[in-house]
């Protein structure tokens, strides 16, 4: 993979990020007439207070000055102050980020791995009961809202069976440390992670299955058999590396949806991550916080797409020369 190729991709990602930053500005500062009234809708402010706030938010200059100030602030990672908590937005986000990264990271990994395995099994044994059950299962999970699945799991596993905690990241009042602490967190993460994993593995299974079915018709598989390879080798060495390419693309596309899904799922399980933070921010609405979260989510998706693009180019040599 040439340096030129990689740099072009990185530049593209940065350009998209720039677009998001500009778009963000337009959403809040330009959409409505008086940004202060907008930001503090529902509060009664005196003229002085309004003027002071305008100054504080840098809203007293011309639109262009405002934009310049905004860009400068953003690049310095100054995303404003939360309206509800009055803490800097960047701190609020930073405090919660790891909980979401852990949750979304593990879920994406598991749903990809299991989805791919199910898809391979369904395609290789096409028409068999394995195929039908997995296809039905994936259709069912695709059709249900992800947070509703979370609700069902919560009711059965936590409320009725008491196998798992009902919410939070650790048991209240627990002062376990080290490994015990980690175990406690994992115990709490099990249900939300299961929800996100099951909600999204269906799509991977479907895509992997159809990609593998297409690949199974290719000539080079017959060639591999003719060489004397066992069926399993034919599948693993020749069919799967080709069929997995659309799945990589799907991971990239899905990441945005998984992040979105995390918002509702974290709410259901009271998981203290960015998703839950978003839900809380909606109660204001705490617009500076929402704006900051929007930026962070978008940046995460852009970055993830970049990684997926490069990974795809690594796996498919035909793309590199383009």
């Amino acid at each position: 993979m040439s340096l030129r190729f990689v740099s072009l991709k990185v530049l593209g990602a940065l350009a998209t990020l720039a677009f998001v930053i500009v778009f963000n500005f337009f959403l809040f500062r330009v959409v409505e007439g008086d940004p202060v009234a907008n930001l503090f809708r529902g509060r009664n402010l005196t003229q002085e207070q309004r003027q002071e706030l305008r100054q504080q938010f840098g809203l007293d200059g011309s639109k262009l000055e405002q934009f310049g100030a905004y860009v400068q602030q953003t690049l310095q990672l100054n995303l404003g102050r939360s309206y509800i908590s009055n803490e800097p937005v960047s701190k609020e986000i930073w405090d919660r980020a790891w909980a979401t990264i852990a949750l979304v990271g593990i879920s994406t990994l598991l749903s990809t791995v299991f989805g791919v395995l199910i898809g391979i099994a369904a395609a290789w044994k096409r028409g068999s009961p394995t195929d039908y059950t997995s296809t039905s299962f994936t259709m069912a999970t695709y059709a249900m809202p992800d947070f509703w699945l979370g609700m069902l799991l919560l009711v059965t596993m936590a409320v009725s069976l008491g196998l798992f905690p009902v919410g939070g990241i650790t048991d209240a009042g627990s002062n376990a440390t080290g490994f015990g602490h980690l175990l406690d967190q994992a115990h709490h993460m099990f249900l939300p992670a299961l929800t996100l994993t099951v909600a999204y593995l269906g799509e991977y299974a479907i895509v992997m299955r159809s990609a593998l079915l297409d690949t199974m018709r290719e000539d080079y598989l017959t060639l591999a058999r003719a060489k004397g390879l066992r069926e399993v080798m034919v599948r693993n060495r020749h069919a799967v590396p080709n069929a997995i390419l659309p799945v990589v693309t799907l991971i990239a596309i899905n990441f945005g949806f998984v992040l979105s899904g995390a918002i509702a799922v974290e709410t259901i399980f009271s998981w203290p991550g960015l998703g839950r933070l978003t839900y809380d921010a909606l109660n204001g609405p705490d617009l500076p916080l929402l704006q900051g979260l929007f930026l962070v989510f978008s940046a995460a998706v852009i970055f993830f797409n970049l990684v997926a693009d490069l990974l795809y180019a690594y796996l498919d040599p035909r793309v590199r020369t383009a």
Partner: protein
Amino acid sequence: MTDMASPDPGQEHAAPLLSVRDLHVTYRGAEGGVPAVRGVSFDLAAGETLGLAGESGCGKSTLAGAILRLLPKGTTVTGEVLLNGEDVLTMKPGRLRAVRWTEAAIVFQGALHGLNPVQRIGAQVAEPLEVHGRAEGSKAKVAELLEVVGIPARRAAEYPHQLSGGQRQRVLIALALACDPSLLIADEPTTALDVMVQAQVLDLLEKLQRELGLAVVFITHDLSTLAANCERIAVMYAGRIVEEGPSRDVFRSPAHPYAAALAAAFPVIGDMRYRRAPSGLGGDPPDPRAIPSGCSFHPRCSVALPACTTDEIELRIVGPGRRAACVHAGEAVSAG
């Protein structure tokens, strides 16, 4: 019943390298079986070249696949395919995998997806060496094989899409030779190529066949290439061999009307007979699901007799080492 007469007196009496006896291949179709090969028998001696000609759907590619049991699951194959005396069709899976590529190898069409698009050329050529326990010195062997077919060894690091059609075809030839097989089955190796490149590949195949003493089954729809490159030709129609014999004879004076039409479709420059425009043959080859009764060629045949619609015609001896499945065989027949 198909002719199961003893081998023609024109052939050598040593045990043939490949002996196909009464092969029937039926695919599993949506509405019942689809017969692709309906009783084919032929022998091939070591070092001998046989050309197999026919239009699309006549069963020639199916035949090629059947020899190494590469047909899709659910396909019914009956008869015998004796490779060095062993019946491929009844081999245990382990033995079959060991035999594949080491005793007989196939050269497929070099289409874009004939090779694995995401694997380097060198790795693909080295693969059969690994599989058959000859991984030692495989890198050198791969370089040697590529050089033999005229591809610089350094290109082993490239991917299939970086090669031209002709180069991919050569790679497939190099690949086929990797385990030193004694039989090469070439399935339409030049069909997708330009004429100039075709000539180069054919030359290469002929040179390799001579130098390595390979037996070759050369499958194509272009009868004229066979005439120059093969000792014997068999013409297939609707799953059966309808004419068979020394290539020059079959091409110059075909005994079966279909063979005649096929020969006439590919004019030879300089041959006075082709001064007039070559006559095309009307109609299409029959759908394997609806093969005409009697002699399957009768709907398109210009010299068909009433008996041809009901009686199945067997291969009859027309001359030394020549057979044809036509009621007129024995007389000289030319395309109308």
